């Protein structure tokens, strides 16, 4: 094997197997040292790239900047997010989609309130908790309008001297609600409910609970 032209390392390179070729990269610095047609059955059959672990068992981050330490740790960190998400919606179809999105985050409890007062009860009962609380409010709620509920939650937190919950408005959001969201420090996930919006909501809350 030729020594790496970037760092001079002459050990066995790591190999990335793709459907039609394999890429050899220096095990020390990550520099590409060769490209070849796959010659053995270790090439993947489904066209998905497969990363072979270094033969030495040592893992060194590539200095090329293709990956950073944050790339490798963030996903795990978000998975370890801990807290309680209170979802305020009276749209039953939303329940399952959001519940499924939160299933990726084992340490985040997800509870639903179909009325604003139910959400307030849950928020007040969690004020003493050391875990973080996230409140996701459906902008289409009509029994307790989203922005009013946001203001009410902030008012209670101020009155009781409690830490602030993370508030997220979701759904079809008008400019007035957007302005209210800015005033109370809430975030917005605009759009009609879908799996991808639910995943964004779950990730948005999980990011704050790390």
């Amino acid at each position: 094997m030729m020594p790496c032209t970037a760092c001079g390392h002459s050990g066995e390179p790591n190999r990335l197997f793709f459907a039609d070729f394999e890429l050899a990269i220096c095990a020390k610095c990550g520099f590409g040292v060769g490209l070849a047609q796959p010659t053995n059955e270790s090439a993947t059959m489904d066209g998905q790239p497969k990363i072979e672990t270094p033969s030495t068992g040592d893992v060194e981050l590539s200095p090329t900047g293709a990956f950073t330490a944050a790339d490798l740790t963030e996903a795990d960190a978000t998975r370890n997010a801990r807290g309680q998400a209170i979802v305020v919606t009276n749209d039953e179809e939303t329940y399952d989609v959001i519940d499924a999105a939160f299933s990726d985050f084992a340490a985040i409890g997800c509870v639903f309130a179909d009325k604003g007062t139910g959400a307030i009860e849950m928020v007040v009962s969690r004020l003493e908790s050391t875990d973080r609380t996230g409140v996701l409010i459906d902008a289409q709620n009509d029994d307790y309008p989203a922005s009013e509920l946001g203001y009410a939650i902030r008012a209670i937190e101020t009155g009781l001297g409690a830490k602030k919950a993370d508030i997220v408005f979701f759904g079809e959001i008008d400019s007035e609600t957007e302005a209210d969201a800015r005033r109370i420090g809430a975030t917005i996930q605009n759009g009609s409910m879908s799996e991808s919006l639910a995943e964004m909501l779950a990730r948005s809350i999980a990011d704050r609970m790390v």
Partner: protein
Amino acid sequence: MTKRHILMADPHGLAEFMKPALAKLNPNLELLAVADGARCITAHAKLCKAKIPPLVTVIPDELDLVNGRQAAITLRTVERTLGVAATAIIYLQSEAGDADESKQWGRAVAIMQGPVDQPKREAMRLVKAIAKVLSQLTGRGRK
């Protein structure tokens, strides 16, 4: 003697006309006036946390940030969750046609809101309403 509070969401500035009359009614009463629904909830929560919930809370139905109806049900939720005594609510309805929801809240009475272009007159009307509610709370009848 510990001061007790009358909390009032007061977007029209009636409190300044009410304070002298309330002081005459009971010197231990203090009127706390706030401008909108959110501040009303905050003031109420502070008093509840201190275990001295307001004796009476006056809430007009039309308020900024959190309207009167939502503010009233929020006060009840906070009281229930914190386990404090319920404040008596005087709910000021702006339109006669609206259904009186205040009956569902418990310890609440709805009255029609008077004209705000006659603040002194409206203030005195509210003082009378507060006096009536206080007399019912103490069971002593009107003085």
